[in-house]
């Protein structure tokens, strides 16, 4: 029985078409996934018929036989309240901050006209989505819950009024890898139990593969291809889908051939980092405790773990661009001085690339000046002409048109900005790159190309890499070894293939499970 059917859907912003001729149907208990990069129109497609975007739609979208297109907002609000539930990307901000979990859940429960629920019913609803201590949580305000817990509450609210259709717009993108897997499993379980029709929106083909019955691939507002999930993944018909699949690293890809590492380059021991707790109360929150790691010449080491596990803090402490309470870091056997005493000679050795490419570049500087900044301090012997020459060479090396040299960052796309950041990192010839989630803010295809660029730099320059990631499959493309962090400690380490084939620590097991 078809719950939701979309035909010839077109969406316009003014007179500009953004989505053209999209169609799909979802039956009871079925999951259809809309897949595409940013700007593909996937979110517009699922939200506009319900009146949740300011855009205009034509065509047809029927929910349990009732037409949505062309209906006034009042009618759409009624349909949303009765028959549909919605989950959005940002669990941290999707709950009303001044109302308790219980009050918000009760409101959602009653939105289709059901009588006020009792405490028992609310507690059961929270228990059902896997929230621990549900009774207690009813009285809590949202800020006391973690991102994963809030997303569970939002799921409980989205199904509390027994809708027929659940619309999930990138429900896991803001969560770390472990939570992503758990949340997808929860959605699949609820869908089966309730007979819900699930419309899932994602940019990540791999993550929905096991959960969707059918997949619709969107590209620039048009359907590239659609079909049964297994079939589409096994034999993609369109070039775009193939590119998407190729750009998404998978744990069952053949093992990459990595360059052989040399002598030990960097060895850190007994690193501890803590931050003062806010307010005047005494005490410090320990972010990293008793951590040790080593990296050899040309070796790539991945630091993986959930959000808040301390991986970024540890890497920054080791690279001397973040605070550290104590701990020694040896570079080729000689200890590095503390953060404030690092000399230009030593600074040259380790260079970082960060997650957010736009925030990585000073908006007031030109690209050429941004890339040249390390040369001014780390290679003071170079004259202006030599600097310019090196900047241009670095831009060429990251495959960025040298015409961008005199532009400012605001005209760059995310991928181009990240290439500029990489050029800045390599321009002074470092020996170790610190990649702090360097591809995770980018679109799938762009991230794939940046990953390929890093792979090439690793080979041609013999660079050692310290790669922070929550994505095991991406780490596996570049890294010889994996270190797993949890709650400020390194809980497991070993060669990449061994960690993935036989994870020992529970956290590693959950990470591996979440990536396959």
């Amino acid at each position, binding site marked *: 029985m078809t719950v939701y059917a979309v035909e010839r859907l077109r969406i316009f912003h003014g007179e500009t078409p953004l989505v053209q001729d999209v169609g799909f149907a979802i039956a009871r208990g079925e999951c259809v996934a809309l897949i595409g990069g940013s700007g593909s129109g996937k979110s517009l497609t699922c939200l506009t018929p319900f009146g949740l975007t300011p855009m205009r739609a034509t065509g047809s979208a029927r929910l349990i036989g009732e037409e949505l297109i062309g209906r006034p907002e009042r009618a759409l609000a009624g349909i949303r309240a009765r028959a549909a539930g919605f989950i959005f990307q940002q669990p941290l901000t999707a709950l009303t901050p001044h109302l308790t979990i219980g009050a918000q859940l009760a409101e959602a429960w009653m939105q289709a006209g059901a009588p006020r629920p009792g405490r028992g019913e609310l507690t059961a609803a929270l228990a059902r989505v896997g929230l621990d201590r549900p009774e207690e949580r009813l009285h809590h305000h949202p800020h006391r819950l973690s991102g994963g817990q809030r997303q569970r509450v939002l799921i409980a609210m989205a199904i509390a009024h027994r809708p027929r259709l659940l619309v999930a717009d990138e429900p896991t993108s803001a969560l770390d890898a472990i939570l992503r897997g758990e949340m997808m499993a929860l959605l699949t379980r609820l869908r089966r139990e309730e007979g819900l029709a699930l419309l899932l929106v994602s940019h990540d083909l791999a993550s929905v593969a096991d959960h969707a019955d059918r997949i619709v691939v969107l590209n620039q507002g048009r359907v590239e291809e659609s079909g049964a999930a297994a079939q589409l993944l096994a034999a993609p018909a369109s070039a775009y889908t193939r590119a998407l699949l190729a750009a998404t690293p998978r744990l069952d890809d053949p093992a990459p051939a990595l360059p052989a590492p040399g002598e030990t380059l960097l060895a850190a021991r007994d690193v501890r980092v803590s931050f003062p707790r806010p307010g005047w109360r005494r005490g410090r929150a320990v972010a990293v405790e008793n951590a040790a790691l080593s990296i050899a010449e040309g070796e790539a080491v991945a630091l993986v773990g959930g959000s808040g596990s301390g991986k970024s803090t540890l890497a920054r402490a080791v690279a001397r661009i973040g605070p550290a309470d104590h701990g020694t870091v040896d570079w080729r056997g000689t200890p590095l001085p503390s953060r404030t005493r690092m000399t230009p000679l030593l600074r040259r050795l380790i260079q970082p690339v960060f997650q957010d490419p736009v925030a990585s570049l000073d908006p007031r500087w030109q690209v050429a000046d941004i890339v040249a900044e390390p040369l001014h*301090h780390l290679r003071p012997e170079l004259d202006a002409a030599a600097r310019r020459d090196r900047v241009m060479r670095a831009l060429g090396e990251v495959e960025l048109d040298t015409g961008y040299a005199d532009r400012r960052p605001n005209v760059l796309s995310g991928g181009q900005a990240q290439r500029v950041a990489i050029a800045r990192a390599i321009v002074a010839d470092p020996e170790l790159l610190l990649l702090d989630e360097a591809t995770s803010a980018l679109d799938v295809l762009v991230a794939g190309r940046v990953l390929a660029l890093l792979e090439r730099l690793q080979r041609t320059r013999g660079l050692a890499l310290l790669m922070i990631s929550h994505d095991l499959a991406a780490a596996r493309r570049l890294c010889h070894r994996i270190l797993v962090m949890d709650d400020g400690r390194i809980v497991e380490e070993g060669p990449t293939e061994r960690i993935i084939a036989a994870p020992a620590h529970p956290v590693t097991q959950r990470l591996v499970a979440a990536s396959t």
Partner: protein
Amino acid sequence: MRARVPLVLLALVLLAALAGPAALPWRYDAIDWSAVRAPPLSPGHLLGTDSVGRDLLARTLVGTRVTLAVAAAAALVALVIGVAWGAAAGWIGGRTDEAMMRIVDALYALPFMFVVILLMVLFGRSILLVFLGIGAVEWLTMARVVRGQVLALRERPFVIAAEAAGARPVRIVIGHVLPNLAGIALAYLLLTVPQVVMVESFLSFLGLGVQEPLTSLGILVKDGADDMDIAPHALLVPGLLLVAILVCLTLAGERLRDQVGA
């Protein structure tokens, strides 16, 4: 186009205040014995004269000049203290930051106009003290805004990248932090000026600010209010001019603040 109206008006007022008095036949403190309480449009006195026969147009222009000069000086004092305090708190961070901002919070809770008046009473009424005093109390908002910006900038990846690039803290502050702060500081400077104008006029209105025979818009409003039943224009002209200046400065400052996005 409409966005520039406040700035154009301000420029005109500034021009008139600076060049106007020299072009007039009467000095602001010269008494025309033949024309005491002359009505507007009298020969030689476009806006008439006050109760002792001083030319009202000359007094209004000079008063505007004094008011704006005090405001600019005090706003600069506020800018310097505010940026220095806020940037130091934000850059140093930690306990120092918290202590410095607690002081700002505590000062915020005080009725500042009264403290300024208290200082006037205790240490005499000099124009220098007026603007130093006002500047010294109007820096709090600037300090808060700047501190918030610096705190955010300090964690921005491009600042950390600059550290990794071997730039010394001074270079980072000069090269990355201050330029990214300039827009917002300018916006709040523009918004501080009307605050200061208000305080100065307030004090002068009460007779506690600028002293006769020198004049300011606040004194002129006060004189006008005393005589408003017989000569309402003596209240309306300086009053509306003062309001126009305040509105234009506020509109321009708010617009700039919204543009730089904070």
